[in-house]
């Protein structure tokens, strides 16, 4: 393999854009801006040979907080690359040069790609690039990653410095250098010595050292730290920033009068004390309205019409070919029927993805997290969890994918696990049919209560996870607000396309197999003792029908008195829209029950009591999500253990809630006793929830050693308790 070039830089400094520019836009970069979750590699031409370009997750410092950052830091620490290309956001020079200094200490050949010079010029500032290169001791190449300016210069510079020693290293104060001089022989590398000085054992954890060496290192540190007036962990950062300040004073020319700041003016409105929340609400409503309202429905209907026409055409073609009935059934009902159900989501997803890309590229997403953090913290989540959960009202699939914007793996996991409880759009027809049939004048209240139930269960589950299985993980919040940028159409469309493509590919691969299995279960069965292919209206005899009858006893305690709803729930596994459709088939209704729910009203009125219906709705809401959502979840959780856990958890919660509803609801309502018991149970649950919630509120890891321990108002009862 040729030369390895690693792209390292702060989050949101344009690494992925540069990566695309260097390796060609045909590279699949489906990630969200600023959130490169894993390292990605691509190839670029370097002189006469090829270079491997490695895009690492963005990081502020080699002292890491999250797993993604660790990927990058470990990579740098183990020196797996030949050249570092450090992308520096010129509009934020001071902070960006901090990581630059850490990288300079590595001694590896390095080039600085100075991005965002256009913003600097807009602010009427100027950077003396030759001077900056001289002070840092490495070449500095101005680039505009989004327009591919300067990339050739950059690669030429990379070619020049490969394998060459860097002429100079940054030097700090005499006391610091002396300490590092003493550490270096023990570690065998000056870079590791700096890392140990800064972070102790954690700083060099990527390289193995024996116990005696570590002891010797600590002994040196104890001696040397006496020479500094500030805390040991602040010495090196403070000196780096001192050096950066002197560099900035030399190279950065600022206008005498500050230029009117656009970001400031926009934020005066968008994060305004009073207007901030209503504006945020309106933006979210608008996104929803466009994706799931008349426009989205209109596009979806048109799209579904096209698909149906296409599949109808294929169906007639297959029938004309005169294939075996089971082959045509497999193709028409299994493959295309299933695909149509899933691909039908595509237009709405694409609209959602488009707006997400717009919000994110412009910089508003960060403001949304800033605005919502206070509310989400009550449930142990950070402000960034809000958008994914909100998207869950539309469809769990994009919602789960959106959890990638969260920076902590724990937050991502918890948010992914609770999203399916939020009632998605496909469950709405179920409520419409049942509430319409049995609750007539109060139907809207019943539907609303379903949405509310979903939200409550989702938020309480989040609290529960934080309190139990993910104990000690406190959702941190520390976020930079980027400058507002005009989203470029190309970028927005690229992101939309990448995400939509990901969805399509999944539909074509993973889901296809599942559809075939479910088709087999639905269209094959024993009729009068012979196993054969079934007609559309014979689902009663299908294997799925038998399965429904078989598991009915399990469903009896939660109010199912008939095998038909049980089968409907099972088909909901493919797509929640199928629940109503299946009921239509099972009750022998002619016509489209999904479009016109009132056709089902009389059958439901005879088969369900209001309490049974309510329990059924709750079970459909909270139980296992559809297969598309499950696939997305397993992809984001990246762990079979967690995936299995959440599926079992969701089924159990659904069962318990439905059980509670049915048992309490069907008890003799006149009986005073049951009312008291129910009231008492609700009070106890409420009090417990309140207590759990009240204990949250601060984000300190531990009170131990905290300087304000005595005067702290939010100190938990038990002193060692993490909150």
């Amino acid at each position, binding site marked *: 393999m040729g030369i390895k070039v690693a792209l390292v830089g702060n989050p949101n400094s344009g690494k992925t854009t540069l990566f695309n520019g260097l390796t060609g836009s045909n590279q699949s970069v489906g990630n969200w801006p600023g959130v490169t979750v894993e390292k990605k590699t691509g190839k670029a031409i370097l002189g006469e040979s090829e270079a491997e370009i490695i895009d690492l997750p963005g990081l502020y410092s080699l002292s890491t907080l999250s797993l993604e950052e660790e990927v990058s830091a470990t990579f740098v620490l183990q020196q797996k690359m030949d050249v570092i290309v450090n992308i520096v956001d010129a509009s934020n020079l001071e902070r960006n040069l901090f990581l630059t200094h850490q990288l300079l200490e590595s001694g590896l050949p390095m080039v600085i790609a100075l991005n965002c010079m256009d913003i600097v010029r807009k602010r009427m500032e100027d950077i003396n690039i030759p001077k900056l290169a001289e002070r840092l001791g490495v070449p500095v190449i101005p680039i505009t990653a989004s327009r591919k300016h300067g990339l050739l210069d950059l690669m030429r510079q990379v070619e020049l410095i490969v394998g060459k020693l860097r002429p100079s290293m940054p030097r700090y104060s005499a006391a610091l250098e002396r300490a590092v001089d003493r550490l270096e022989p023990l570690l065998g590398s000056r870079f590791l010595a700096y890392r140990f000085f800064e972070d102790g054992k954690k700083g060099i954890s990527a390289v193995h050292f024996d116990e005696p060496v570590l002891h010797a290192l600590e002994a040196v540190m104890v001696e040397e730290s006496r020479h500094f007036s500030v805390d040991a962990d602040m010495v090196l950062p403070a000196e780096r920033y001192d050096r950066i300040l002197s560099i900035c004073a030399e190279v950065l020319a600022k206008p005498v009068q500050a230029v009117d700041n656009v970001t400031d003016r926009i934020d005066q409105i968008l994060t305004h004390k009073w207007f901030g929340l209503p504006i945020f609400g309106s933006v979210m409503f608008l996104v929803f309205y466009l994706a799931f309202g008349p426009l989205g429905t209109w596009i979806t209907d048109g799209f579904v019409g096209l698909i149906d026409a296409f599949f109808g055409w294929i169906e007639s073609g297959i029938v004309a070919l005169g294939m075996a009935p089971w082959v045509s059934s497999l193709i028409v009902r299994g493959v295309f029927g299933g695909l149509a159900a899933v691909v039908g989501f595509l237009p709405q997803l694409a609209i959602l993805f488009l707006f997400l890309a717009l919000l994110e590229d412009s910089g508003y997403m960060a403001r949304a997290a800033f605005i919502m953090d206070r509310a989400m913290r009550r449930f142990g989540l950070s402000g960034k969890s809000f958008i994914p959960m909100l998207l869950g009202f539309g469809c769990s699939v994009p919602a789960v994918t959106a959890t990638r914007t969260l920076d902590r793996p724990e937050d991502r996991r918890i948010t992914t696990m609770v999203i399916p409880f939020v009632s998605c759009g496909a469950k709405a027809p179920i409520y419409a049919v049942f509430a319409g049939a049995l609750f007539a004048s109060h139907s809207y209240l019943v539907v609303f209560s379903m949405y509310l139930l979903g939200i409550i269960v989702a938020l309480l589950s989040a609290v529960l996870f934080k309190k139990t299985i993910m104990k000690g993980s406190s959702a941190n919040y520390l976020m*930079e607000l980027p400058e507002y940028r005009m989203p470029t159409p190309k970028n927005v469309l690229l992101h939309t396309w990448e995400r939509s493509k990901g969805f399509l590919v999944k539909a074509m691969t993973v889901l296809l197999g599942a559809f075939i299995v479910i088709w087999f279960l639905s269209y094959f069965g024993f009729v009068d003792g012979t196993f054969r292919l079934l007609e559309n209206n014979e689902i009663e005899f299908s294997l799925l029908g038998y399965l429904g009858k078989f598991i009915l006893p399990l469903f009896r305690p939660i109010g199912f008195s008939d095998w038909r709803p049980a089968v409907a729930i099972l088909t909901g596994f493919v797509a929640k829209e199928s629940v109503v459709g299946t009921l239509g088939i099972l009750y022998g209704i002619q016509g489209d029950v999904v479009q016109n729910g009132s056709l089902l009203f009389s059958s439901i009125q005879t088969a369900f009591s209001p309490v049974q219906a309510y329990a059924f709705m709750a079970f459909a809401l909270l139980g296992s999500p559809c297969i598309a959502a499950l696939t997305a979840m397993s992809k984001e959780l990246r762990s079979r253990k967690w995936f299995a856990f959440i599926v079992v958890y969701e089924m159990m919660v659904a069962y318990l809630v439905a059980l509670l509803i049915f048992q309490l609801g069907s008890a003799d309502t006149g009986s005073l006793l049951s009312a008291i018991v129910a009231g008492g149970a609700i009070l106890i649950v409420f009090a417990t929830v309140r207590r759990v919630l009240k204990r949250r509120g601060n984000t300190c890891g531990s009170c131990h050693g905290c300087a304000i321990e005595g005067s702290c108002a939010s100190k938990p009862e038990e002193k060692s308790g993490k909150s």
Partner: protein
Amino acid sequence: MTLKDIRPGEHCIIQNLHPNNLRKRLIDLGLTTGTGVLVKKMAPLGDPMEIVVRGYLLTLRKAEARSIEVEKSEVTR
């Protein structure tokens, strides 16, 4: 006095950072002793807060702001 007590629009200078689980990150982001900070605003719900430090916008929760000891000043740097 801590960063939490500084009102929007006021400047201050960092004196010390008390231990918390984000201490090292705060330092790396430029909140070192002697650094000037401008408190820009509070979020609409009163928390987190938005500050200008080293020329960029950073938002942090009051829980962390409470562990940053500061002294009021007239202007930043």
